[in-house]
């Protein structure tokens, strides 16, 4: 059979940062082609290019050629992709919540009344509700689903929504190429199997499928070929029969030279914080009933694929998102997830979203460093009788900040410079300086090195290690940078779907991490 899709030397940059580098890929008719890779390896970018997502054109298009059924593909928007018979099932649902299942499935392709078709044309014709419902039910039946198609999508559970989303694409007569972005991520094993069976049936009917999944077992089970992406490049390709989850995991993570910065040691058995059935409703990063113990004085790494909850832990403790379950800090239970109370108790959170949550962009470096300490712990306040309290002791603050800026090598023209003018690395140093000002016993750090150049990265990691060693600050560091976690952590917890999947030692092999991240037990 011929190639449905042929990609030659495809490259794509986002603002000078390469997302895809010289990618070559072919998908034959009736083939299920797997695509695996860690976060940020370029899978989503490729999907977006193939489906004509606007973001690609707005960020300067791409280099290289893509042929769809022998014709050069030039997409301006998703509608053009759809008209060519390309379909996509999104990771986040692209359904309209206020419409019924039928309406969602048949949107834009409704069966209309023949008489009014002739009178007013297809566009303004009456929609035949009965026929549409029957047709929609038929498609869903194919997926093994028996459900009232008149229900509104808003009221459906996530896995049913996933099926509806699938049904919309399957229901298309003209479909020849289907893009699937982690369609099984929200499904349980049985439902996922149903979906896989449908995919196999479709491929037998001649539809080419490009299938992205983090579940390596599924890839192994249904794919004819699989391509592994790392840092925007194709690193390996396997045919059916050669696919092994171990190899895929190894290729995804890649072999990197790790330099041990923090020597391994034994940490105390005193728990600093115990999470019991802790849930955080952070949209897109939910934690579901997590059980985890953090020991005093350790650096605990937390990692997961994006969307599996590694970022939500600190925010949950600070009450930024609704949280449930029990948290025991020291010997006491935390009654309220409230930032002021918890900062006073010695807990501090450095957010991953530095621009959004980490800094006051229009304020000076000095203001950013002392803000929390001053507001919560009344540090640097002038000692004046009531009601004149609350003014700042400028000299004291100035001395303190000057010292910190010097110690941490924060590069700024003056401590009165606005923080938004600083580089990302220096902003992060300011954030850490602010955290140290409140002198926390337990520090949550999320993605501390994201968007920071290499030299500053080392400095920031060094700062975290020093804080931990010299002040006995317990640190919980959430990061997707496995290499960094392995260098500074005592233990690394891997979360899958918001639950603790496994705690690994930093010496564990990349394969073990790759498998754990994908939620696969060791084989």
């Amino acid at each position, binding site marked *: 059979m011929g190639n449905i899709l042929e990609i030659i030397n495809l490259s794509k940059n986002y603002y000078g940062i390469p997302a895809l580098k010289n990618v070559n890929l072919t998908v034959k008719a009736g083939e299920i082609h797997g695509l695996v890779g860690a976060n940020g390896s370029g899978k989503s970018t490729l999907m977006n290019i193939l489906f004509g997502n606007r973001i690609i054109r707005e960020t300067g298009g791409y280099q290289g050629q893509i042929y769809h059924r022998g014709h050069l593909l030039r997409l301006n928007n998703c509608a053009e992709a759809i008209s060519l018979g390309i379909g996509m099932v999104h990771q986040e649902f692209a359904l309209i919540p206020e419409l019924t299942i039928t309406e969602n499935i048949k949107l834009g392709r409704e069966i209309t009344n023949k008489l009014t078709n002739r009178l007013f044309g297809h566009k303004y014709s009456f929609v035949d509700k009965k026929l549409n419902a029957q047709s929609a039910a038929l498609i869903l039946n194919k997926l093994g689903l028996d459900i009232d198609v008149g229900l509104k999508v808003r009221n459906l559970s996530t896995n049913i929504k996933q099926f509806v989303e699938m049904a919309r694409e399957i229901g298309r007569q003209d479909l020849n190429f289907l893009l699937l972005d982690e369609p099984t991520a929200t499904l349980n094993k049985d439902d996922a199997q149903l979906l896989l069976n449908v995919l196999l049936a479709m491929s037998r009917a001649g539809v080419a499928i490009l299938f992205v999944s983090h579940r390596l077992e599924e890839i192994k089970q249904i794919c004819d070929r699989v391509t592994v992406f790392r840092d925007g490049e194709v690193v390996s390709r396997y045919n059916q029969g050669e696919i092994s989850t171990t190899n895929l995991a190894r290729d995804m993570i890649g072999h990197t030279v790790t330099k041990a910065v923090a020597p391994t040691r034994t940490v105390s058995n005193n728990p600093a914080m115990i999470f019991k059935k802790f849930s955080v409703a952070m949209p897109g990063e939910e934690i579901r009933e997590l059980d985890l113990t953090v020991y005093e004085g350790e650096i605990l790494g937390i990692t997961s694929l994006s969307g599996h909850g590694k970022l939500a832990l600190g925010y949950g403790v600070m009450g930024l998102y609704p949280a449930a379950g029990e948290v025991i800090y020291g010997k006491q239970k935390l009654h309220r997830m*409230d930032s002021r109370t918890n900062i006073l108790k010695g807990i501090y959170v450095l957010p991953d979203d530095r621009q959004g949550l980490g800094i006051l962009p229009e304020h000076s470096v000095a203001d950013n460093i002392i803000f929390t300490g001053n507001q919560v712990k009344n540090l640097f306040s002038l000692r004046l009788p009531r009601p004149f309290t609350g003014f700042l002791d400028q000299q004291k603050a100035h001395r303190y900040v000057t010292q910190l800026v010097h110690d941490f090598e924060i590069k700024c023209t003056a401590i009165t410079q606005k923080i938004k003018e600083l580089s990302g690395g220096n902003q992060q140093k300011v954030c850490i300086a602010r955290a140290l000002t409140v002198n926390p016993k337990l520090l949550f750090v999320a993605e501390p090195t994201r968007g920071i150049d290499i030299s500053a990265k080392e400095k920031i990691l060094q700062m975290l290690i020093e804080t931990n060693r010299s002040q006995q600050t317990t640190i919980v560091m959430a990061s997707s940078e496995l290499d960094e976690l392995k260098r500074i952590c005592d233990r690394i917890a891997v979360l899958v779907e918001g639950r603790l999947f496994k705690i690994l030692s930093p010496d564990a092999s990349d394969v073990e991490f790759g498998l754990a991240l994908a939620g696969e037990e060791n084989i």
Partner: protein
Amino acid sequence: MEVYRIKPPQVIILIFLCVLVGLAYMLHLDLVDLFNESLIKLMMNGVLVLALIPMINAGAGINFGLPVGIIGGLLGLCITVNFRLTGFAGFFTSLLLSVVFCCMLGWLYGMLLNKVKGREEIAGTFIGLSMIPLMNCFWTLVPFQNRQMLYPIGGQGLRPKISLEPYFNNILDNMALAKIGAVEIPLGFIAFFSLICLLLALFHRTKVGRATIATGENEEFSRLSGIDIAKIRLIAIILSTVLAGIGICVYSQSYGFIQLYDEPLAMYFPAISAILIGGSTGRRAFIFEAVLGTYLLQTIYLLSVPIANEILVPEITEILRSLITYSIILYALLHRSGRRLSH
């Protein structure tokens, strides 16, 4: 310190002002007299403009609900006049009463605005608008006794315009008035206005004040830093309302009348225009911007009246005023939505 940047509205206003001054000179109008009056106008309207600052800085947007505070101030004024208190005693009693009423009204207003976070401006507009008919009923029914406040016929219900002539008319205007030739400098009024500016500046340097500015700049950051957002916003809104109450007292003593009924609605658009002309973006406001904006706007109003009377039909004045006021607000709103998208 940040370098003060001149933006398009200020350029337009400045050009307009220069043209007006030139015209006034050519028409042989008394420029010294106009200057004297411009100072009074600045301080007369200035406090109402300052009243916008705390809410803008707290991230609660431009206070389109300024009439709430104005109504509190009018209540204070009316009660003072009812008891026929005169002179400084009368004026300061009215200030005190205004502050009390405004604290209560501001608290309610703040609770409401905290419920409609992100839409404070439109909500404030309608809270202000709905207060007016409510207070119209109140003004007609309230059992005040002072005959000079009541309708001359029937003797019931407050007049739309109550003269302050016998009580504390121009009390600040004439306080410590220094005359240098024809130039009159109202030192007392300047001192009073400066005091309010100073207090507001000091507020922003306190812990609560700094938390307010941080909340306006990055609410999530503040929450993560242990700040009670709702409380901080409430304080800023109450402060804004109280300043509006003081503002209307200052305005009324200068104007010479207490204006009731629909009059609060005529007060807040010029105030908002003024702070926008001063260069505020509606996200962060400085006292300097409020003072500069008030001076520019009020001076234009002041100059346009005699000039329009000389060379144009008199009605053109009112048209010009409205045009300037509304278009400046429109410009600011357009400008701001542009900024929001660019993020």
